[in-house]
Every structure is written in structure tokens, then in C-alpha cells.
């Protein structure tokens, strides 16, 4: 049995072509640039045979055949145009347009609508309907992001099949029967999904539209640029559509098979309003006598350079520190290290949040490798909360390959699939994982003790097997920052040490690059605030006046990812390209420009563009030795996990939510409903035991502090005995707490206005 796939030769419209056996006609036609119209067929969703628009004439068959479900056969002769085919298409279009409302002038899809396009190409023009069109509900508020228009819907079921095949969430379903078929969710339940925006792209007509884009623009008014999204570590390719200097919407990149496969998560898709938010910083601000004073760029850079020189001269380079870089491009991250190391400073660390490691190690896999895994071991913060596109790959492995899911600790699975759970990584030995040949391990990069225990187990299985490791961390370009060397080398302090030094008054100057440690740095907002307060000169580059920027001495207005060019690494370490899609507000500079200006003021040589590019992209990024690489952690951090005494109370789980945060999401008013409330989520059983109900208000109490006024939510999939809160909420920052610690609930009350 040889491995070469069999090939088939057929003729389409007089052109002979040879394709692999099993190819669908609709795909074969694409090879000769013949577009057969389709609605329900989608390359990623497969054929459904519902719309009937793809009818073609296959010789020797009496009836027209649908190209989406006909596989090529040797010697097949196909006609995709001609009277027979045109009659069929005209018929189908007449039926589709019959009760379709004449909404084109007010429909968002106008200009990029498949129904419009095919009607012009294949339709018959006038309608023969002598009766009123069917009236159905319009502008249905389907959920926080999507509006459904039943009248426009052609029931192609791309949206329901997307929810069934790709996300496995099955929130959208078809209800009723016949002409009354309607797309709906479970009664009374909104359509809430991290991937809801994709249905607006899948929908061939304007039935599903995005709330953030409704009535905003026409596609021909938009200028499109292809760039990379930097809102999470996944690194999806993204199309940015701007008009008059405003980013109006983003769209997926169908050809991005390496990462996103043509899908986008809602965070990347919808969090774009902040680019034109009036609260954007547009000039350097200096705090003088408790007031903010505007400064010119030259003065600001000069002041900064002067302060740095003075600090080095009087207290040595040990009194300097640079934090952040996980949200910068590779080029910018590289320059941070370059400039500060030129001053002799080794207190450089990108880790201003929970994530402590970015590179998984030499066994790091690609996105495609996830799909081929036979078993998936998931530890820490779920991929669905940190890199949703990775979560789709995990779901694909489960649904299409039957991969087995093993959850460790309190991992919350976002979908209902069968899984095993063990308490700790070392417990994985009790499962029979050695019968698999390809296993993928996911860690969030937060707790190095968990990471190294997991690493040990993974290594024990590595012999004769394919092991793929991934870190789905919370910081977007952590891989790039780490890879460019923003980790302290010998003699330097890591971020925890830097803040400790700050606290003790040992730092003279601190630079924070595009980071918000007040909100995200473990140790608590108070500790971080206190630390920063004790540093005489703090410079922050930011887009908005975040809690960290508020406490700085000098705030420099920076640019966002869509306004910059450069490169990042996705979480697998592959280089991704950024191209500017929208003009930045006047007065802002990218961190690259800021650093070059600073270097110039300091008299430090900066590598030229070619050398910088080579450094940022072509050099292989630094690779850790595995999960929990000791080079990245202080000794104390790697102490073995203790099985603590059974404390009474609940175990805390700090989950991530891509719509939390104090920067781009906080300052994006288009996202109103998507910003999460401060919640405490429990399983039904735990809530019953604790005596709380969904919707109650409660305080979370621990030694480190209290979070008051959390809304109780009950959810399935949450481990009994745990309570889950969200990281990064400006109103209820969780940075003082740690996942796994014991907390208690107190002061349960019913909110006012509820019976």
C-alpha cells in the first residue's frame, strides 16, 4: 500500500484538471479559478446541501448536482454555466429573495453581501410574488455582541454549524420547522461566546450583525490593512478596516492556517474602539507639585536621560530598573534591553503580571501539532481565557480526533466534554497516559512549582513519543519580550525584586513600558503603589492614564499595535508581522521611537534597521529548558509544592477574562456589556453548601485582604469547593491573592431591588 494519494482527472467547463481523490467539486473548481456560488458550504464547516445554489450540470446525470457534496470522479465532465445551470441558480435565487426584505439601504452587509452579488450575477430581476412578504422579528438582541434579523436569514445554518462543529458550544440552534425555521438560543439565554463575532463573517447575508459596527459604514469606505492582533498571546492575523482615521471594525484572515484558521475571538475583533477614544494621551505629562504638566517630547526625553545619567553617576546602575515589554513589539523589547544594559543596568524584567514564563521549552509545539494530539493535559488558567484561538484547536482535537482531555487542579473546562481530572501534576502518573504516542501539555506560566512538576512528568513520557508543550499565558507578546532578553541576567533583579527594592527606597529611576503592574502584579495593588511611590522618578509609556500611569512621574503617550509596524512572536514562537492600519493620534510616538530618542539623548548606539530586524525576527528566540526553567525564577519560587493542611473555607481560583483590564478594554466604550462584573463563581453544590444564590452580593475574605461586593454566579464545570474570581478588574483587583489559597465568603446579602 503506497502512501501517494490517488489522483482523478476531470473536465470542468472544458478545462481538464487533475486533483486528489475525494476532492469536492466546489473545491476542484477553485483550482481553475471558477467560483461556484455557495451559501451553506464553507471550507471549514464542510458541505450541508441546504441552500442549493451550487448546482452544476454533471454530464450523464439527469438532475443538476450540488457541487459541494459531489466528489470528483475519473472522467467527469462538469459545466458550471449554461442554460440548465443558470435556470437552476435563477430558481434558487428567486426562492431566496422571495421573502427577503428589501433592506439593502439599511443593511450592514450591503456591498459585501453574497446575496446581492449572486442576484446581480444569476438572479432574474423582478419578483413574481403577489402577496405580502413574511414578517418576522427584526433587530433581535441576541446577546452582548450580535443582532439577529430573522427576515434576512436564509437558514444556511452556517452559524449553527459553526457553533456545533468549531466551538462545540451549541448555543445557536435552529428552532421550529419549515418556512418558520428560525435561528435562536435556548429560551431566555443570550448568545454569549468568546467567538460570537465569527458568525457575522460567516453569515452570507446581513442577518447576523455586530452591535459595534451596526449602521457605521459601507465596506467601500474602508481602508484595509493586514496585521497581527496583539490582545493576547495567540498571535492571530487580522484585517483592520479604518475610515477617516478611526478603526471601525476588524475581520478575520481566512488564509491564516498557521494560527487563527480564519477565526477571531471577540476580544481581538471588538476591542478596537480605544484607538480613537478621547482619553488617549497625546502629549508627555510631568507630575509637578501634584499636578500634571504638559511637556514637549524633546524636554521629556532630555529630562529622562538626564535623570538616568544622574542616577547612574550617584548610585550606580543598580538603582535603575525597567519593567514591562510584554505588550511591545520584538524590536521595541529588544531596544529596552539594549538601552538599559548599555547603562550597565541588569534590573530588567517583562513580568509585570501573573505570567512568569513564556517559552515552553524545546518541546514547544505548533498550533497544528495540537490537533494531532491523542491526549491533552491542561493545567492552570484555561486557554479559552488567555488565548481563545488555541482553545479552538484543542476543541478540534477533541471533536475530530477524539483526543482525551485531562484536567489538572481546578481547571475549568469551557465546554461539556468527557474528561478526567487529577489534583496535581504528579497524579498524572496514575492515569495510563503511556499508551498515547502524541500528548500535548498546556501550562499558563504562572506557578513555576506547578510548571516544573508538570515538566518532570512530561519528560518522563518523552522517550519514543511526541510531546508538545505550550504556555498559554496572559501576556500578549511575552514570548517576544522573553525571547529578546527582557529577563534579568546574573546580578539583576527580577520584577518581584525590583519592586521590593523600590519599596525599600533603593531605586532612583524606574521605567515601565506598556504595562500596568498596579493592577496585575502579584502582591496586591497597595504593595505596588507603595513601591512606586518610593521611587523618585518613574516613567511610564502608555496609551491611557491607567492606575500605574497615575502614579508615575512622567507619562509618555505611546501607540497601540494597529498604529505600529514590527514583529511579535505568537505563543509557539513563530514570528508575526505588524503593519500599521490606522494613523496614530498626533503627539504619540511608538515605543520604538521613544527608545531611539532616549538612546540618542543618552549617547547610546542603537542597531540599524537591518540589524534590528534580524534580531527581532530571524534569530531564533531564546528557548527555555522546559516548564519551570530555573533560569527564570528566584530560588524561593521553585520550592516544591506543599500539600497544605486542609483549611476550612474555599479554594480560590483566579481566572482570566480577556475583557478585564485597565487599559484598552477599560477605555473602549463600545465594549460596555462585555466588560465583566466582579463575580464570585461557584458550582451549584458549593453554593448550596455555602448558602448563597445566584445574584447575591458577597465579600471575599482572606488574610491578604477583602474584596467586597462580588456578585455570586453559579456555573457548571466549576470544581466543588472552589470559588473563582477574575484577574485584572480595576474595581476589584485580585492581585493580592493567589490561586490555590484558602478564602472565605462573608457578608452575604441580596442586592437592593431584588425580591
Amino acid at each position, binding site marked *: 500500500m503506497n502512501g501517494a494519494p490517488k489522483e482523478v482527472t476531470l473536465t470542468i467547463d472544458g478545462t481538464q484538471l487533475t486533483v486528489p481523490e475525494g476532492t469536492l467539486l466546489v473545491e476542484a473548481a477553485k483550482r481553475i479559478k471558477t467560483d461556484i456560488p455557495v451559501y451553506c458550504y464553507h471550507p471549514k464547516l464542510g458541505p450541508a446541501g441546504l441552500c442549493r445554489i451550487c448546482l452544476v450540470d454533471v454530464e450523464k446525470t439527469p438532475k443538476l448536482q450540488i457541487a459541494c457534496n459531489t466528489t470528483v470522479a475519473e472522467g467527469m465532465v462538469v459545466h458550471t454555466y449554461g442554460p440548465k445551470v443558470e435556470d437552476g441558480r435563477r430558481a434558487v435565487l428567486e426562492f431566496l429573495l422571495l421573502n427577503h426584505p428589501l433592506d439593502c439601504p439599511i443593511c450592514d452587509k450591503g456591498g459585501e453581501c453574497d446575496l446581492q452579488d449572486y442576484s446581480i450575477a444569476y438572479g432574474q430581476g423582478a419578483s413574481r410574488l403577489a402577496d405580502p412578504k413574511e414578517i418576522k422579528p427584526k*433587530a433581535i438582541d441576541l446577546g452582548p455582541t450580535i443582532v439577529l434579523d430573522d427576515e434576512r436569514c436564509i437558514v444556511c445554518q452556517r452559524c449553527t454549524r459553526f457553533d456545533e462543529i468549531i466551538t462545540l458550544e*451549541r448555543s445557536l440552534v435552529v428552532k421550529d420547522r419549515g418556512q418558520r425555521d428560525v435561528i435562536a438560543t*435556548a429560551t431566555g439565554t*443570550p448568545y454569549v461566546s468568546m467567538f460570537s463575532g465569527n458568525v457575522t463573517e460567516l453569515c452570507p447575508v446581513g442577518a447576523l450583525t455586530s*452591535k459595534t459596527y451596526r449602521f457605521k459604514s459601507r465596506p467601500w469606505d474602508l481602508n484595509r490593512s493586514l496585521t497581527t492582533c496583539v490582545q493576547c498571546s495567540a498571535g492571530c492575523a487580522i484585517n483592520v478596516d479604518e475610515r477617516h482615521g478611526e478603526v471601525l471594525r476588524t475581520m478575520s484572515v481566512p488564509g491564516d492556517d498557521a494560527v487563527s484558521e480564519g477565526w477571531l475571538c471577540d476580544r481581538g475583533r471588538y476591542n478596537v474602539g480605544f484607538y480613537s477614544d478621547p482619553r488617549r494621551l497625546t502629549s508627555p505629562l510631568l507630575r509637578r507639585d501634584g499636578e500634571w504638566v504638559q511637556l514637549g517630547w524633546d524636554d521629556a526625553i532630555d529630562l529622562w536621560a538626564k535623570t538616568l545619567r544622574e542616577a547612574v553617576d550617584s548610585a550606580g546602575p543598580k538603582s535603575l530598573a525597567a519593567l514591562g515589554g510584554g505588550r511591545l513589539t520584538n524590536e521595541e523589547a529588544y531596544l529596552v534591553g539594549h538601552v538599559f544594559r548599555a547603562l550597565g543596568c541588569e534590573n530588567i524584567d517583562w513580568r509585570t503580571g501573573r505570567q512568569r514564563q513564556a517559552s515552553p521549552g524545546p518541546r514547544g509545539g505548533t498550533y497544528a501539532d495540537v490537533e494531532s494530539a491523542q491526549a491533552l493535559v491542561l493545567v492552570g488558567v484555561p486557554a479559552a481565557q488567555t488565548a481563545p484561538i488555541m482553545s479552538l484547536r484543542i476543541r478540534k482535537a477533541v471533536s475530530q480526533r477524539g483526543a482525551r482531555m485531562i484536567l489538572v487542579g481546578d481547571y475549568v473546562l469551557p465546554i461539556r466534554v468527557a474528561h478526567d481530572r487529577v489534583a496535581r501534576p504528579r497524579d498524572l502518573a496514575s492515569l495510563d497516559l503511556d499508551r498515547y504516542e502524541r500528548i500535548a501539555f498546556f501550562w499558563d506560566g504562572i506557578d513555576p512549582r506547578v510548571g516544573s512538576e508538570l515538566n518532570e512528568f512530561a519528560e518522563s513520557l518523552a522517550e519514543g513519543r511526541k510531546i508538545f508543550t505550550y504556555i498559554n499565558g496572559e501576556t500578549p507578546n511575552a514570548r517576544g519580550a522573553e525571547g529578546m532578553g527582557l529577563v534579568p541576567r546574573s546580578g539583576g533583579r527580577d520584577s518581584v525584586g525590583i519592586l521590593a527594592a523600590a519599596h525599600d527606597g533603593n531605586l532612583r529611576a524606574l521605567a515601565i513600558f506598556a504595562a500596568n503592574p498596579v493592577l496585575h502584579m502579584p502582591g496586591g495593588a497597595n504593595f505596588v503603589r507603595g513601591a512606586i511611590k518610593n521611587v523618585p522618578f518613574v516613567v511610564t509609556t502608555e496609551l491611557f492614564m491607567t492606575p500605574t500611569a497615575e502614579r508615575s512621574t512622567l507619562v509618555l503617550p505611546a501607540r497601540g499595535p494597529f498604529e505600529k509596524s514590527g514583529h511579535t512572536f505568537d505563543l509557539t514562537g513563530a514570528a508575526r508581522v505588524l503593519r500599521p492600519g490606522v494613523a496614530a493620534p498626533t503627539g504619540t510616538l511608538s515605543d520604538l521611537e521613544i527608545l531611539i530618542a532616549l538612546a540618542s539623548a543618552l549617547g547610546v548606539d542603537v542597531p540599524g534597521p537591518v540589524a534590528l530586524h534580524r534580531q527581532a525576527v530571524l534569530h531564533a528566540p531564546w528557548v527555555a529548558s522546559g516548564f519551570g526553567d530555573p533560569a527564570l525564577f528566584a530560588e524561593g519560587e521553585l520550592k516544591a509544592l506543599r500539600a497544605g493542611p486542609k483549611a476550612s473555607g474555599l479554594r480560590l481560583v483566579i481566572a482570566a477574562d480577556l475583557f478585564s483590564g485597565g487599559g484598552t478594554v477599560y477605555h473602549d466604550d463600545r465594549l460596555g456589556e462585555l466588560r465583566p462584573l466582579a463575580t464570585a463563581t461557584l458550582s451549584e453544590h458549593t453554593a448550596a453548601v455555602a448558602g448563597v444564590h445566584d445574584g447575591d452580593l458577597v465579600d471575599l475574605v482572606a488574610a491578604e485582604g477583602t474584596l467586597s461586593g462580588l456578585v455570586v454566579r453559579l456555573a457548571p464545570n466549576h470544581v466543588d469547593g472552589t470559588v473563582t474570581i477574575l484577574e485584572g478588574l480595576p474595581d476589584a483587583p485580585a492581585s493580592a491573592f493567589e490561586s490555590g489559597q484558602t478564602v472565605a465568603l462573608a457578608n452575604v446579602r441580596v442586592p437592593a431591588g431584588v425580591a
Partner: protein
Amino acid sequence: MTASRDFAETLAKVKPEAERLMAQYPQKRSALLSILHAFQNAEGWVSPEALAAAAEMLDLPVSVVESTASFYTLFFRRPVGQYVLQVCRNLSCQLNGAEEIMAYCREKLNVRHFETTYDGRFSYEEVECLAACDRAPCMQVNLEFVYDLTREKIDEILLAMNAGNFEVAPLPQTVKPDVTWFVAHEGEKKSPGAQGVSSPNDPGGIGDPSGRQMIERIVRDPRLVEARPTAERLVRDGAARLEAGAEH
């Protein structure tokens, strides 16, 4: 309609039957229709609680169970009467006088197709071929056949049902039914439950699903308001012109 029943009791009754049904099939999802029949037999209709319970038992999302249930016409998604009268309106019955019979039923019960009588006793539906064409016109009462319908026969059975001694047992009725059990559009105009979901009439920051804001903006644009003749202004301007002695 208020739920004046204890669903836990129904669930306890249906659960053993459901387990037996699920065990019969290689995949337990196959038991869904039969489980919904069991709930309907117990309560008289397929309630939201029943759908949720079925979803739980079969490990399915509620949305999928609702989608499946909504496909089949024998599942009543809202409460119905104690006697569900389903008269055949298809070809062979029509050829044998079904139209007259249906008109008579509607007249006697004072209902239309898909409606329940005011006292909540009879629900009336016109259905498709019941496979009793040799005894046309015919109907089913609670899925039991009543053949060879005539006006007299209709009178007879209605009498018996009202008296409670008809050969077919009434359905259990846990909730008093409304006028109809027909679910017009399964989609709702507003999806409650999302945190702070905006109303189409007051969208706040998230954009305007109904387009109303945009229309408001156009209609109330001050530059346009001034230019637009309103009745009031026409009268006012007309009076002013009269005063000024202008010609009209």
C-alpha cells in the same frame, strides 16, 4: 400563568421511565423523543422544566433539546386543554366533508385553529393525514381515534367529555392554558440574562441594534428641524405673513 405544581414530583415519576428508555438504545440521546412524551403524558405539556430535565439526563445543552422539541408538532410547548381535538384536514377527509366538520367544531367550541376554549377544557387543532382515510372524516382526541364524524357525533362526544365520562381519558392539566399553545416565533426580541444587556431602545455604549438612534439623530437635527414645515409653523408663518400684508 402560574405554575401551581411540583415539578420534582413529576421528575420522580418520569425518571425511572427515562432510565429504562435510555438503556434501550446504543446511544442514550435516542431516547429524547420518548422522554419528552413521558413528560407530556405526566404534565399534559412539555414544560421548560421538562426540557431542562431531559437535557440534564441526556447530557445535552438545553438549546439542542429545545431545537429538537420545536420540530415535532405533537409536543405542546405551552399548556393545552384536557382534551386535545385534532381534526384531519387533508385530502381524503376533505373529499368526505371534513371542512364542514371543522367549521362545526370551531363554531361549537368557539375557537379557531390552534386555540383552547376559555374554560381550558378543549384544545382544537387541524392536522394532516391521520391514516384513517377509510373512516373519513376523522379526528383524534388525545391521540385516540374518533371515526366517521358527523355533527351528531361531535355533539355526542363533546357532551361526554364535558360530563367526564368519555371513553378517552383527559390529559393531566398542571397549568391552566392560555388561548393558544402555538409558539409564534421561537426567537425573542430581546435576550434577557446577559449582564447589563442593552435594550434596542436604549443601547448605551454598544451601538444601536434598532437603528433608532441614527433615525433620531437625523430627524432631530436642528438644521433640519428649522427647515421642515410643521403644521404649527405653517399657521404661525401664515398668520405673520397675513399681518405683514403679503400675498398668498
